[in-house]
C-alpha cells in the first residue's frame, strides 16, 4: 500500500475523528499530522496491518489526552512544514457540542465520535476498542445522557435521539 494513497483516502476521516475528540481545529490538524508522521516512520509495519486506519485512530485518541504532547511536542514540527490556511470559526452549535463533549470521559467521547462522525456500528466500535458490545452500548448511552445534561435544554428540547 502506498503511503500517499493511504493518506489521501483516509486523512479526511481521521480529521473528522480528531476534531470530534478535541473540538479544536488547530489541535485536530496537528493530531492528524502527528499520527501520519508516526505511521510514516513505521510504514513498512503499519501498511501490513489489516486495518491501518484503526492504528491511526488509536494514536489520535491517545495523543488527544496527552498533556505533554499538547504543550511541547508540537515544537517538533519540521521547520519546512508550511502553515496551513486559516480555519473558519466553528458554528455556535459546534461550540456547544464540543464543550459538552469535553465533559465526558474519554471512552464515551471516543465511542460517540466513532459512532456519529465515522458511522461506525456498535460492533465495529467493540472490535476496535476491545470492549464488549454491552460496554459500547453503555458508553454510547451514558455519553448521550452526558451530552443531554451538558447541552442547554433549549437546544435539545425533546431529549437526545439516536437515529442509528
Amino acid at each position: 500500500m502506498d503511503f500517499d494513497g493511504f493518506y489521501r483516502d483516509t486523512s479526511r476521516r481521521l480529521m473528522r475523528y480528531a476534531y470530534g475528540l478535541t473540538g479544536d481545529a488547530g489541535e485536530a490538524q496537528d493530531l492528524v499530522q502527528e499520527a501520519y508522521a508516526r505511521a510514516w516512520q513505521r510504514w513498512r509495519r503499519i501498511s501490513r496491518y489489516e486495518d491501518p486506519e484503526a492504528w491511526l485512530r488509536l494514536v489520535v485518541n491517545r495523543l488527544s489526552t496527552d498533556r505533554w504532547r499538547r504543550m511541547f511536542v508540537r515544537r517538533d514540527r519540521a521547520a519546512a512544514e508550511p502553515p496551513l490556511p486559516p480555519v473558519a470559526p466553528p458554528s455556535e452549535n459546534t461550540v456547544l457540542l464540543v464543550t459538552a463533549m469535553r465533559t465526558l470521559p474519554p471512552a464515551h467521547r471516543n465511542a460517540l465520535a466513532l459512532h456519529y462522525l465515522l458511522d461506525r456500528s456498535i460492533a465495529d466500535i467493540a472490535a476496535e476498542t476491545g470492549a464488549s458490545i454491552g460496554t459500547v452500548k453503555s458508553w454510547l448511552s451514558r455519553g448521550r445522557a452526558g451530552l443531554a445534561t451538558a447541552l442547554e435544554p433549549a437546544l435539545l428540547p425533546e431529549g437526545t435521539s439516536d437515529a442509528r
Partner: protein
Amino acid sequence: MPADLDELFATLGRQADAIPLAPAAAARERGRQRNRTRAVVASAVAVCLVVAGAVGLVERSDRRPDQTVAPTPSNRAMPEVGSPISLGGTITSADVVAADGRVFALWKADDGTFHLRAADLHTGALLWEAEHRTEQKAEPNALVGLRAAKSAVVLNTSGAAYVYRATDGKLLFDLPLAENDGLVLHDRAAIRWSQQDQQIEAYDWLTGERRWSRDATADRLGIVHPRGTLRLGESGDGQLFEVTGEGEVRLMDAGTGRVLETFTVPRPADNGWVIAYDNWLIIEETSGKNGYRLAATDLGTGETTTVVSEKAGHTLHGLDMCDADRLCVLDQAPLRRYTLASIDLTRQREVWRVPAMEGYPMVESDGHGRTMVADTGVMAFYDANGREVLRTKEAATSWLNTETLLNVPAAPGPVQLIRFSDGHVTTLGEVPLRIGNCVNTEDRLACPTLDGLRIWSLTG
C-alpha cells in the same frame, strides 16, 4: 437550531470537513524530523500517559482479574486550601504547573493575550499576575506551554520563551526560539539547542546573558540528561551529555559548559534510542528488521556491555529505568504481542518478563521498582517482581509517593488514593469539572476549573 444529536454531529462533521489538511509530504517530513530527534525526545514521551484519561476504575488484576472496583461515591467536597483564584472571563481551558511550593496557571484570552497567575500551594494565596500580549496573529497551530524551573516559570510560545521570576512574576528575559529548537530548563541554566545549526547555548536564569555555548558539530545527535531531567524536561543536577552519531559522549557541566569527561560508546543505530539515567547510558546499537540490541554504559566506569539482544521480528517499543540498576524494556514481538521485561544491568541478565497489554502501550516507572504500562485509558501497574498489582481504567493515575497512587477524575467525581501494596482505595472527596490537567505534590492538588484555579489538601 438542530434538535438532536444526529444534526449536531452532522454540523460538527461538516465543520471538520472544512478544516484544511496538510499534504502527505508534510507528514512524511515530520516523520523524518522525528526520527532525527528521537534520541532526545524519547524519554519525555514515556511520561505522557501518566496524565491521560479520566475518572478511575480500579481493578486488582493479580488475584481477581474480573473484579472492577468502581469509585466510591462521596458527598463531601475535597478540603480546599484558600479560595478559588479567578482565571478571568469564561475560559474553557488552562494549563497549570507547580514547582517549589508554587502553582502557576496559564490561559489565553480571546484577544490573544496570555495570562499567568501564581499561587502559594500551602496557603492558596494569589502571589502575582502577569500577562503577555502576543504581537503575532493567533496561529491555530501555535504551540503554547508553561514550564516551571527552580527559580522561574517559562512561557513557551511559537516564537520565543518568556522567563518570569517565580517569586514575583517579573519578566526576566525572553529567548527567541526557532521552530525546532529545544529548550532544556536546567537548574543552573536555560539551555537552548538549535536543531538548525546544532549549536548549544546556555543562558543565565536571572539575567538572560549567555553563559556558555558549544559550536556546531555536524554529527551531534543531541543532548541528553540524567534521569529526573529529561523525563520531566525541567530541571537537573548539573550534568549534561552531548552525544554524537559516532558514539562519542561528552559529559558537561551544565552551569559552565566545561567538558568533564569524554568517552566512547557503541555507535547508536540510525534512529536508535540514546538515553541517560542516573549512572547509566543506554544505547540502541542496532534496530530494524533484524531485531535490536541495547548496550548499557556504566557512567562510573565507562564500561559498556550488551544487556538486551532480540532477534528478528522484535521491536523496541519503550524503555525506562525501573530501579537503580534495573532497566524495564517494553518489547513488541510479531503479531503485536508486547512483553515487559526487567533487566539487571549489573549482571546483564533478564530478571523477569511478563505479557503486557496490546494496543500502543508506553512504559514508565516510579524509579523504585514499580512500573506502569499504559495505553489509551488503561494503565497496568507492576511491582518489582513483575506482578501486575492493579489496573486502572480511564484513569488519570499518577504516582503520589512510593506507596500510593493518585486518581484524579476528568469529569466531576471523587479523588482517590490507591495503596499500591493491596489496591485499597481511599476516597478523599469530590472535585468539580476541570478545564485542564491538574498538578499535585504529596500534600496538594491544584486544578483549573470553571470557578478558577483551585487548590485542595490531600492530607485532610
